[in-house]
């Protein structure tokens, strides 16, 4: 993996490198957070917290391991902390059925972003994704939108590679079920096209 020079400069404490990285990742990180929490205000708060955490821990960051997985793992951990605060049950504690609570979190209430997205052709996808639990949502966003490698996703989520694959499969199956429920006749043809 090529070492990111800005990440190296960040590790050395160069504030200009931090600003460059902020500009580079602004939309991608914001998108990840919006997908996760579905509320722009909360996403903005988490976005700010993520960058402040980056600034605090820049010295501890290992540039050889890549900035991107590190950045997204910070954002992901802060998001999970947020979920734990707003939903007191532990997301890691499994339900009696053996399922994770995080996978089964109910759909988030309608937000402004969702209403805007509804007007677009991809509304159904965004809507279906917003109804997924954060554990499925994060793995789909990291794979399809961030285009991360499976190994990078495993690093961001701190889970083994086979678990990444399992979550991806379950997430896609869950997406499909939700989309089929929304469409007349339960068919999917052409909905992915712009």
């Amino acid at each position, binding site marked *: 993996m090529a070492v990111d020079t800005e990440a190296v400069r960040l590790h050395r404490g160069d504030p200009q490198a931090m600003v460059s990285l902020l500009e580079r990742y602004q939309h991608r990180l*914001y998108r990840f957070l919006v997908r996760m929490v579905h509320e722009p205000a909360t996403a903005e708060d988490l976005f*700010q917290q993520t960058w*402040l955490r980056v600034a605090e821990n820049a010295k501890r960051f290992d540039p050889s391991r890549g900035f991107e997985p590190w950045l997204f793992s910070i954002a992901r951990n802060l998001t999970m902390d947020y979920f734990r605060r707003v939903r007191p049950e532990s997301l890691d504690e499994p339900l009696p059925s053996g399922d994770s609570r995080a996978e089964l979190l109910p759909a988030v209430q309608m937000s402004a972003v969702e209403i805007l997205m509804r007007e677009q052709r991809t509304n159904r996808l965004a809507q279906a994704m917003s109804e997924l639990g954060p554990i499925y949502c994060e793995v789909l966003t990291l794979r399809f939108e961030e285009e991360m490698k499976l190994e990078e996703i495993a690093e961001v989520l701190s889970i083994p590679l086979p678990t990444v694959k399992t979550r991806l499969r379950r997430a896609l199956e869950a997406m499909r079920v939700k989309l089929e429920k929304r469409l007349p006749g339960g068919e*999917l043809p052409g909905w*992915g096209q712009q």
Partner: protein
Amino acid sequence: MKKGSDMNQHEKTREQMPLATAGALDANEERELSAHLAECSDCSAEFEQWRELGAGLRRMPTPQAPIAMMERVRASLMAQVMARAEQRSNRNMIAWLVLFGWTTTLATWPILRLISHGAEAWLNVSFVHTYHILIGFTVLSWLAAAAAAGVLGARHRSERRLA
């Protein structure tokens, strides 16, 4: 038997489809899937839907980071960087002042003894008083260091206000 085997292959292919959509199959599994899709129109049609799902996910619109938020985050980061720099500068200043204080304390007394060698007898300063004099010089040196710290701190604050 052949029918049962075909059913297993269909099921296996169906299980592989979401992973293939996510590009998470290994080379052998990919080959196996392609071979089955080439000869099974039902599975092939279903896989097309999975591929569309994958394509749709890749084309989801990206919400843009709001400009106001970016300004806020940039300002917070800069404030944090400046606060850190100030902390570092304060630590350095304290270290230098401690060094200055001890150096003056240690250097003043021998210098004074050297300079006032002649006057010492006249003043009748004896070694009995050395301990008290040393304490006096120490206190004076540290007061000077504290005054210097105050002046430098005030100057630093005023420079930051002007900046």
